[in-house]
């Protein structure tokens, strides 16, 4: 979230699209209800299903899954055609006037530089024209034919209300009502909050779904404002934290990146990470990359990382492919190229697409380790559970370890929520049986491997035996010891910005004190400030909220630098005065920035200096057009899902998203609309959390049995009765469930053709206390978003028919 949960109360319009907060984030959704009740906010819900969020909406507009970009591009076109944009904001705070290089084109659905063999682009023309002064050329009048504003207008010209309706199946009048309501927030004192979740990310163009709304929000001047922003409602309690701390193949904590093998040395690596400002005087905060990187290397390898050895640059692995994400990991396993998998609190057999492929991949590995507080299906992929897991254990040669772990009530530590708050929690009970914390298990494994290397030697042992390990008890580091490393500390005396000397061995106050000369260590720069010399700021419990702004600045710690609303400089006009007194966050008092939040800006940088509010960006402004930063294009474009009931109307030659990632064998596993005519989607129910709560008695009673949800019309066509058993199948697999025949799903009229939606909730398996069932991953295709490799779980094709119950099930 750019903002925070309580901040939603300030919104005048709230759009929930790509999510269902009322059911998936109920206590956060209460702030939407608060905004409706006390701020007269209008709630817009755009969703293929009439969800419980939709049930309290002022405007509900149906949409076919996988067509959000067409819808939102249509909204952006409406704003521009009808002149409902916040002009000063767009002119001063966006790249609308930036002139794009010659050679950049967009024709028949493809940007310049496409290579169909590689399914990838040469992005060299996707950049600004650079002037003789070395900076990007800007036309403040926005009239230059190659400036971003003109290119945007051209790019979205096709998304007329008629076209939106043909593609999305949204009735034109509803679509226009949505446009009109969103447009009302173009005025400086009105804001819209955009709430989204996996309904936007689970697509082959998920990142571009989000980009589409970023464009709308930037045109309206809603970023950095109270009650505005882009609110990513993360799915799990600490998936924000896992991402911040960089548990991905290509990340170093704090959104730094693992080198590729084309960056053979530190100089080369840093050369590509200079982040020089693209406009005069801009902050371009990533210029500090070297300080964060060197401090990370020092946190890892201490005195073994020196200037002379390029801060132990060779200790880091180098990538030969963009990422080794899970989809690639299990593709390699299926090909017999993986020896083992170590799985922490994760149930991939019931989470990743194409379960048959997952099961095959698991059975090909020599060993699988599962660390979990619950008995998962993954740990039992080799066990026969009849129709629900029809395998032959004797033929599976995998060694499997199930290691019992503690859960939240039995440990202390911090979790990062959607608002970027790091909140500390405390232990309330002893773990049952022999459960151990994940920290103790990982430390136990590591210390064993390290001593094997010390005893026996082996492949490149240095980074292992030299890893910083200053814990009082080597096999069981404490959460506090680890939190102190995340915050960062001095290794030699340093000078802070005020000139004061901080001695060696002290916790730093924040990332502004980090150095690139080896005098500081910091595991995750964005978390710096979480455990200072003053103590554990994540454990703070002062809920005082000055001005009733919904900020509560002394509750826990928010990254970065305890800032609660990102880009908050943009809440003021270029002169430093709040756009709206009612929505005041910070302001310039003649000497410095003051207010309710930590300024996202140089604290004494005067407005007349002309520094842009988006200080992380080299441009200093928000991007309507993203240069070469996205793999699949600088503007979002409508592409159909890889399995779609329709052809791409504006670009009929293009199937799927041109740069999305799909492996060859998975391409062969795609079905067609002739064979599989219905548009399927997956989702959560409010009574369950993924596959965890099927192990909790009350939840297992509340929603005991798997079902699929279909319209009355489809039920009638197929002879399916309420509560009857149905079989749903795709090119990749089949499942059985009971039918819920509902008015919440209705056929969508797309280009004159009725499209039927089949909804498949995702909470059942063959372990736990519910009745046994299947997860939609038995059916879903292995397709990854071009930028994030997120699987396309929200839009694929199935067929459906009435069937007999599975063996042992009650009819």
């Amino acid at each position, binding site marked *: 979230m750019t903002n925070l949960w309580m901040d939603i109360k300030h919104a005048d319009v709230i759009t929930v699209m790509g999510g269902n907060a009322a059911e*998936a*984030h*109920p*206590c*956060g959704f209460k702030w939407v209800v608060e905004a409706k009740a006390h701020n007269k906010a209008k709630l817009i819900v755009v969703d293929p299903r009439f969800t419980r969020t939709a049930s309290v909406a002022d405007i509900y507009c149906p949409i076919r899954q996988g067509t959000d970009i067409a819808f939102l591009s249509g909204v952006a076109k409406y704003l521009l055609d009808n002149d409902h944009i916040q002009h000063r904001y767009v002119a001063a705070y966006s790249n609308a006037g930036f002139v794009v290089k010659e050679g950049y084109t967009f024709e028949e659905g493809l940007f310049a530089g496409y290579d169909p063999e590689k399914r990838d682009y040469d992005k060299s023309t996707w950049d600004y024209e650079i002037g003789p002064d070395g900076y990007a050329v800007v036309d403040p009048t926005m009239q230059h034919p190659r400036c971003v504003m003109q290119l945007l207008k051209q790019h979205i010209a096709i998304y007329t209300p008629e076209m939106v309706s043909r593609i999305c199946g949204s009735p034109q009048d509803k679509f226009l009502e949505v446009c009109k309501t969103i447009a009302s927030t173009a005025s400086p004192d009105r804001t819209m909050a955009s709430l989204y979740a996996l309904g936007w*990310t689970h697509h082959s163009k998920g990142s571009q779904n989000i980009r589409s709304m970023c464009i709308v929000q930037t045109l309206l001047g809603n970023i950095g404002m109270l009650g505005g922003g882009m609110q990513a409602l993360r799915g799990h*309690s*600490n998936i924000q*934290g*896992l*991402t*911040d*701390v960089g*548990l*991905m193949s290509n990340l170093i904590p704090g959104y730094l990146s693992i080198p590729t093998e084309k960056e053979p040395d530190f100089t080369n690596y840093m050369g590509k990470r200079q982040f020089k400002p693209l406009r005069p005087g801009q902050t371009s905060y990533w210029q500090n990359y070297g300080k964060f990187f060197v401090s990370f290397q020092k946190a890892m390898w201490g005195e073994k990382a020196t200037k002379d050895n390029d801060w132990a640059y*060779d200790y880091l692995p*180098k990538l*030969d492919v963009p990422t*080794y994400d899970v989809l690639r990991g299990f593709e390699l396993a299926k090909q017999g190229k993986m*020896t*083992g998998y*170590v799985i*922490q609190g*994760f149930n*991939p057999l019931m989470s990743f697409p194409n379960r048959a492929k997952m099961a095959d991949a698991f059975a090909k590995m020599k060993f699988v*380790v599962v660390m979990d507080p619950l*008995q998962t299906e993954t740990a039992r992929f080799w066990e026969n559970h009849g129709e629900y897991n029809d395998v032959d*254990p004797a033929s599976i040669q995998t*060694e499997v*370890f*199930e290691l019992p772990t503690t*859960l939240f*009530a039995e440990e202390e530590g*911090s*979790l990062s*929520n*959607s608002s970027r708050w790091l*909140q500390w*929690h405390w232990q309330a*009970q*002893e773990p049952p*049986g022999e459960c151990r914390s*994940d*920290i103790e298990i990982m430390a*136990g*494994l*590591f210390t064993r491997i390290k001593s094997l*290397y010390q005893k026996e030697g*082996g*492949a*490149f042992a240095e*980074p292992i035996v030299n*890893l910083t390990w200053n814990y009082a008890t080597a096999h069981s580091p404490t959460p506090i010891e680890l939190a102190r490393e*995340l915050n960062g500390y001095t290794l030699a005396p340093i000078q802070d910005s005020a000139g004061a000397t901080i001695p060696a061995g002290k916790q730093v106050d924040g990332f502004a004190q980090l150095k690139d000369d080896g005098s500081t260590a910091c595991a995750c720069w964005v978390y710096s400030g979480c455990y200072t010399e003053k103590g554990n700021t994540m454990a703070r419990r002062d809920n005082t909220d000055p001005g009733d702004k919904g900020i509560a600045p002394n509750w826990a710690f928010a990254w970065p630098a305890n800032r609660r609303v990102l880009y908050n400089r943009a809440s003021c006009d270029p002169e430093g005065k709040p756009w709206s007194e009612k929505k005041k966050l910070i302001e310039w008092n003649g000497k410095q920035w003051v207010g309710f939040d930590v300024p996202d800006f140089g604290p004494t940088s005067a407005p007349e200096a002309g520094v842009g509010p988006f200080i992380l960006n080299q441009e200093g402004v928000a991007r309507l057009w993203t240069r070469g930063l996205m793999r699949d294009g600088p503007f979002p474009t409508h592409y159909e899902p890889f399995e779609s009931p329709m052809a791409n109307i504006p670009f009929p030659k293009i199937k799927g998203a041109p740069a999305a990632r799909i492996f060859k064998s998975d391409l062969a596993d795609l079905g067609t609309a002739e064979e599989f005519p219905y548009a399927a989607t997956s989702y959560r129910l409010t009574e369950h*959390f993924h596959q965890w709560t099927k*192990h909790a008695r*009350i939840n297992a009673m509340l929603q005991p049995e798997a079902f699929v949800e279909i319209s009355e019309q489809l039920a009638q066509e197929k002879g399916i009765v309420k509560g009857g058993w149905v079989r749903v199948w795709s090119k990749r697999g089949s499942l059985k469930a009971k039918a819920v025949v509902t008015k919440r799903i209705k056929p969508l009229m797309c280009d004159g053709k009725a499209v039927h939606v089949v909804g498949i909730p995702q909470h059942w398996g063959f372990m736990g206390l519910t009745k046994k069932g299947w997860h939609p991953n038995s059916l879903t295709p292995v397709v990854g978003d071009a930028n994030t490799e*997120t*699987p396309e*779980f929200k839009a694929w094709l199935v067929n459906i028919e009435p069937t007999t119950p599975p063996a042992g099930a009650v009819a």
Partner: protein
Amino acid sequence: MNVQVSRRGLLKGLGAGLAGGSMGALGFGALEPAMAASVRPYKLAQMRETRNTCPYCSVACGIILYSLGDRSKNARSAVMHVEGDPDHPVNRGTLCPKGSSLLDFVQSETRTKYPQYRAPGTSEFKRVSWDFALDRIARLMKDDRDKNFIAKNGDLTVNRWTSVGFLGASATTNETAWMTYKTVRSMGALVFDNQARV
């Protein structure tokens, strides 16, 4: 451990104050002790309170865990009740259908309790010791790393290990995440991911 004011303790204190103070002032005299004795003590008042956050979605509602056991020797603490934390600025004491039933998650009968091992080709898990499990996994990992570690690709130093994969958990703490990150990365592992996509 920080000092936490017990909400139930506070209520209990207020109740005692009522019996000994204002009612006396109203002239009920000898009735007071009888009255006080007839009030059944509130069970939760005997419990220890611990501040925690809900482990499910990313709203991260504040919760209060009530547990038996006062930390004295041989007293095993056990969570007996969970409720929303009214001091928490986001949920202000409320919980959803998932958070309200957290007790059943903590006490689930299908929790893992002991390390288990399934040998190749067999059809059941067998209980094993932690030492057996960790020694064996360490051996398997080291043997594979020594065999498949890629130090060079042509002239390029690449120092990567891509034949054992790691998946991080979405409900573990940031501190666990860092412990996992540093140990996994120190081995040069690249097949490394988390639940951000599902």
